[in-house]
């Protein structure tokens, strides 16, 4: 935990609002650029000998003689191992493979400012400056189903909160507002599922693949590939929700 004075040392280029009394700092946290992450993951997959089928929707997965048959519009792909990581579409794909994925949808709205000189050397969970030098201000948590609209009320409250923390942001224009749907499990932690009925089938559900990229790209991927023990991953099975409410 940091005092206000210590926080001021971390952010020498911008003033803190009078309401800021302190902060929390973790040297293990960082910022991952989602676009670059996606590119790196796909490139790594291709470099390892994989083929990416872009824009090919999987309509269903069948089990056939210990093998998985993925039905694509353009044909069938056979696989010995399948990992379902399709966000909110995962449930439909995972059910027939004996995996139940409880989750709800949550809308998050984000404000993006014009590009400004570098002022935020550290990302925070709500306000961070991107490599492209815009400032991203997040995020609402709304239970509105599949609606990905944006609202003036959210823009106002996100902006007000950002200005309360960094008053100088009042002079910066917001140029974009967008929203997306998060996949939220009952305890917000990820679900990493391994089918016991159909060995070789896995499902991953979380918010988000970006936030947890470091673990997904190494620890989890290795275990799915069969290296290392699944024991420490087991606690993230959806079976943890199969308890009666007290």
């Amino acid at each position, binding site marked *: 935990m940091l005092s206000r004075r210590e926080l001021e040392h971390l952010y020498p*280029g*911008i*003033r803190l609002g009078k309401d800021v009394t302190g902060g929390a700092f973790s040297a293990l946290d960082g910022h991952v650029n989602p676009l670059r992450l996606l590119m790196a993951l796909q490139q790594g997959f291709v470099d390892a000998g994989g083929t990416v089928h872009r824009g090919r929707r999987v309509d269903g997965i069948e089990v056939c003689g210990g093998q998985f048959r993925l039905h694509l519009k353009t044909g069938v792909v056979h696989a010995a191992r399948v990992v379902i990581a399709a966000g909110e579409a995962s449930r439909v794909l995972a059910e027939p493979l004996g995996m139940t994925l409880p989750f709800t949808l949550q809308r998050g709205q984000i404000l993006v400012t*014009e*590009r*400004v*000189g570098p*002022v935020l050397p550290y990302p925070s969970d709500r306000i961070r400056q991107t490599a*492209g*030098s815009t400032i991203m201000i997040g995020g609402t948590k709304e239970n509105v189903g599949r609606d990905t609209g944006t609202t003036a009320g959210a823009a106002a409250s996100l902006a007000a909160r950002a200005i309360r923390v960094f008053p*100088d*942001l009042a*002079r*910066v*224009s917001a*140029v*974009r507002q967008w929203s997306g749907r998060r996949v939220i499990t009952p305890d917000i932690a990820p679900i990493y599922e391994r089918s016991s009925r159909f060995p070789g089938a896995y499902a991953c559900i979380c918010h988000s693949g970006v936030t947890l990229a470091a673990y997904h790209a190494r620890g989890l991927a290795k275990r799915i590939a069969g290296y290392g023990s699944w024991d420490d991953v087991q606690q993230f099975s959806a079976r943890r929700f199969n308890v009666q409410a007290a």
Partner: protein
Amino acid sequence: MFRLLEDDRGRMESTVTIEIDGYPVIARIGETVASALLREGASWSRTTPVSGARRAPYCMMGVCFDCLMLVEGEGLVRACQTLVRAGLKVQRQTGPRKVGPSC
């Protein structure tokens, strides 16, 4: 946007004067600031804060954000989504917005 054709109805002579960086620019009623800018010799709208290179209106449909310009009273807006009106004062933005105690 792209309203000029459907709005002109034979009154193409209807013009207003806007200001871009202090210089008067004749614009047609019903067109956007970006469209008026593109007729100018210096048709660039801003410099990108990343490399400093000049940018001009590109997509004209509000998605590329290369035509961001400072409009008096409105702040930084997309010129391709802003209709001209008499006396509108527009400025090109050069360099990143400065934020901090010193300004």
